[in-house]
């Protein structure tokens, strides 16, 4: 946490920059919507939705946009500007601060993580400013309060839903069904009835629900239809999603008044768009306005959670009524023709704002900063990598004393010291102290535990197995668990298998499961076959891949039936590994599936399949291999040619293989020649002879001479004698060898 605050001093200017960009962005959205007066409510709603979503996208965009627009007056990391901001933005504060020093005083562990750097700050007189930390606390408190409020209102809505009963009125249900179809809803909408509410409402992020008050049965059919259409329109327009996003945006940017206005406009435009939808379906505007008025008049809104209500606001309601009644209102639905230019325009604004950066000139202010620094860490890490040569100087301390001091530092009260000691021990590979390391595998500090687990990977020792398995089962930090699994793989002791398998069953984090499965494969113990076979069905592709690899390693032929379907896995890496494993284990039963999978769209997979087919050494694979000769990918072609050469007992060379002799790629030609040398089909001699001649690369000519020698035949001697006159001594030597063998 201290590291977090320390980094705040770096984050401050950018936090302010983002707060300002957020405000700019909303101003742009305001201007855009104000020129869209004549557009439909649905179109304006789209702009507002993008405006809200843009608040989340801007920070990301700002880091990714490759170009920049320098804004000299924009944010710079100095105090005067930041103080202005403080009134308008409670964002993570933007003041040049000494948080680094506070963090240093609190012995921030992160700094040691960077290498335990020296600091020059201890003696500096400057009083640390606590303002940024304070502002950060204020901001995050605000966020927390608003999110809790949001959660509470969600809970209260849920409570009503939980108490509500399915709507018993079948005619009403049927009406909803037909209306839903008319409005274009694809998924069913659940209809509930509750006695304790007075107005109907829609809820449900994952599954939409309409909750109706009991009194709805007393309403006229027209009123019912209008109300239901309105609610269905909310569902069809995914208003619940945008409304949730708006609430979260308000919570995060609560210091920005524009966000609140934007959220309110979003809600209002959403309601109007739904009204428009109702009117598009033929309800008369005056009737609908009347019904709406009745609903409001009849309803004393007792229940108004934060996540609800546009109509409770009188001013907004008047505007809404006017919009309903005005014949000039544009009630168009959102079409691609409208949405595309709007989205393009909004994206353009977003990119422009994201590209804005404070100009370099601004950073010149603040000449007398006395800010204290923890530091030099960065330089430090670099140097850590570059080690200087070990020199022969007399030790002044016996090795034992150093190790003793490092071991006692493992119990230091400061976690940074413990961490540095662990790292020191691991870089010295002090195997004698493995047990001391194991003893702090339950250290309260996460970085220390991670470092210990990593050190145990580097110093694999079976004595650590029990503690590592314990960590794998119980540690709360996923990275520690992953590193523990990794260490167990490095220790490579089969006794860890049962513990790893138990951990695999309960592990929720895919990244950790990968490590566990990898470790099980590394152990190469047949006992792991069951667990690995089970892991073939894991949701995570990498877990499946490691499981296949592990099964291939232990030659678990019994798992072949489960591996074969993975030749059709969505993940190409998994398919490729499956092919590899089937070849590795020589599962001849998989021949048909492998050949069928040769049409894979991924060239690496095809190559691996050809490889597997070739390791089967089965003549039945020949047709598939011959087909693979014509593959688009040169590696696959080469692999197929090689594979054909490796198949025993082939009497006649396939025509396609001979055709490869004119391939554009010299290496492919060479492979083909080697394959033909192996097959020794006399009818291929005449095709090989031209490749011995000048004009071909030396390697091809050499391979052709060797192939010709192997194939034999009547013409061989003539050709070889001819080649004895070749200017190249290497060719002459090969020809001579061929003649010798021939004779």
């Amino acid at each position: 946490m201290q590291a977090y605050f320390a980094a705040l001093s770096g984050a401050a200017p950018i936090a302010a920059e983002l707060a300002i960009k957020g405000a700019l962005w909303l101003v742009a959205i305001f201007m855009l919507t104000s020129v869209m007066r004549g557009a439909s409510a649905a179109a304006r709603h789209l702009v507002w939705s993008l405006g809200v979503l843009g608040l989340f996208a801007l920070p990301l965009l700002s880091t990714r946009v490759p170009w920049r627009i320098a804004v000299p007056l924009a944010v710079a990391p100095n105090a005067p500007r930041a103080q202005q901001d403080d009134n308008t933005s409670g964002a993570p504060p933007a003041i040049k601060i000494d948080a680094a020093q506070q963090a240093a005083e609190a012995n921030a562990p992160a700094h040691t993580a960077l290498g335990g750097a020296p600091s020059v700050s201890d003696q500096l007189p400057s009083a640390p400013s606590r303002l940024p930390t304070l502002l950060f606390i204020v901001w995050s408190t605000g966020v927390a309060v608003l999110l809790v409020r949001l959660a509470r209102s969600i809970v209260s809505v849920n409570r009503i839903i939980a108490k509500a009963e399915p709507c018993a009125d079948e005619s009403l249900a049927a009406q909803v069904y037909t209306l839903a179809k008319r409005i274009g809803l694809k998924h069913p909408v659940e209809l509930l009835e509750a006695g304790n509410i007075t107005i109907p409402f829609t809820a449900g992020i994952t599954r939409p629900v309409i909750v109706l008050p009991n009194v709805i049965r007393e309403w006229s059919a027209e009123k019912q239809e209008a109300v239901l259409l309105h609610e269905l329109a909310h569902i069809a327009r995914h208003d619940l999603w945008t409304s949730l996003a708006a609430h979260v945006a308000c919570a995060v940017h609560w210091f920005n008044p524009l966000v609140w206005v934007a959220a309110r406009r979003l809600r209002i435009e959403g309601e109007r768009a739904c009204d428009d939808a109702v009117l598009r379906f033929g309800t008369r505007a005056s009737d609908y306005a009347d019904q709406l008025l009745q609903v409001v008049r009849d309803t004393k809104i007792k229940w108004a959670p934060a996540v609800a209500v546009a109509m409770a606001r009188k001013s907004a309601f008047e505007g809404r009524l006017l919009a309903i009644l005005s014949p000039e209102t544009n009630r168009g639905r959102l079409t691609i023709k409208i949405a595309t230019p709007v989205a393009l325009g909004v994206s353009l604004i977003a990119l422009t704002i994201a590209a804005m950066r404070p100009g370099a000139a601004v950073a010149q202010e603040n000449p007398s900063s006395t800010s204290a620094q923890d530091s030099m860490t960065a330089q430090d890490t670099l140097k850590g990598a570059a080690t200087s040569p070990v020199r022969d100087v007399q030790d002044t301390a016996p090795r034992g004393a150093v190790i003793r001091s490092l071991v006692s530092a493992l119990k230091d009260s400061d976690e940074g010291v413990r961490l540095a000691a662990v790292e020191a021990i691991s870089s010295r590979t002090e195997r004698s102290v493995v047990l001391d390391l194991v003893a702090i595998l339950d250290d309260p500090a996460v970085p220390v535990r991670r470092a210990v687990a990593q050190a145990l990977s580097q110093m694999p020792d079976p004595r650590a197995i029990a503690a590592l398995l314990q960590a794998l089962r119980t540690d709360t930090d996923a990275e520690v668990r992953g590193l523990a699994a990794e260490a167990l793989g490095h220790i490579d002791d089969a006794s860890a298998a049962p513990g790893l398998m138990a951990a695999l069953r309960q592990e929720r984090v895919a990244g950790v499961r990968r490590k566990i499965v990898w470790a099980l494969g590394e152990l190469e113990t047949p006992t792991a076959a069951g667990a690995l076979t089970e892991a073939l069905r894991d949701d995570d592709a990498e877990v499946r891949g490691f499981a296949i690899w592990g099964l291939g390693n232990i030659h678990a032929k019994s798992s072949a039936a489960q591996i074969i379907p993975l030749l059709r896995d969505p993940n190409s890496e998994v398919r490729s590994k499956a092919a590899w494993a089937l070849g590795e284990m020589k599962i001849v039963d998989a021949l048909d599936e492998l050949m069928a999978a040769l049409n894979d769209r991924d060239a690496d997979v095809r190559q691996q399949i050809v490889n597997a087919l070739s390791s089967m050494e089965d003549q039945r694979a020949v047709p598939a291999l011959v087909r693979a000769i014509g593959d688009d990918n040169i590696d696959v072609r080469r692999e197929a040619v090689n594979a054909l050469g490796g198949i025993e007992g082939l009497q006649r060379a396939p025509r396609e293989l001979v055709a490869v002799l004119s391939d554009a790629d010299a290496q492919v030609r060479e492979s083909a020649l080697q394959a033909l040398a192996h097959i020794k089909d006399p009818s291929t001699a005449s095709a090989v002879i031209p490749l011995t001649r000048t004009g071909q690369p030396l390697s091809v000519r050499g391979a052709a001479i060797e192939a010709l020698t192997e194939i034999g035949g009547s013409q061989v001697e003539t050709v070889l004698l001819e080649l004895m006159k070749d200017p190249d001594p290497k060719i002459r030597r090969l020809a001579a060898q061929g003649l010798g063998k021939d004779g």
Partner: protein
Amino acid sequence: MVHGTASRGPRWGLVIAVVLLVATPVIASARLRAALWDTPRAHLTSQPGQAQREVESLQEFLSQMRGTNSVACEFAMVTIDHNNWFGGSDGFDTPLLDDNRPLVPRGLETDAVVEPLMTALRDADYCVRRSAASLLGRARNARATERLKSTLDDAQPEIRALAAFALGSAQEQSAGPKLQQLLRDATPAVRAAAAWSLGELEYRPAIGALADLLQHDQSARVRRAAARSLGQIAS
């Protein structure tokens, strides 16, 4: 015709609430990463090196560093070595950093830059002091080394610490005995810098003193630096 945000099923509300509470720090850390991504680059994009003379190029560089806050300054220090966490060596490309253009001022090996750098070491601005120490460490220049060694006795603790750090970065072996003496300095920051630098030097004679510091020093930072250095001085 009110719509509420909720979903069906038991306790979904609580689940969403928890997710939102967890998401807040994630969003905040995204901002933090944005900050760290941006800041050093912002200071280093207008390249030094256009200036004709070494000293001008140095001043131009230092003026760009001026005013950079402490964390950003550290990242800038890494950036100039083409070795930061988003650029160069770890497989990502940094679009604005071109390997062919020098990010550090030219001519650090010349004597002309030594005095300006020594002056910058006492600048009022932290990042300027910090950059000067780094550049002096990179210079590996005999004259700079001599000046730094005599600065190890400076009256100001911060200057002693920066000089020790620069000598450690330069891996200047001849500074070993002097740095070992600084392990007994009254100021923890100086002791920490000296301990750190002795690790960079892999100065074996200091092993005993470092082991002693690790066990007995009052300041955690000194103990950390000692532990790290003991790891570096491989036995």
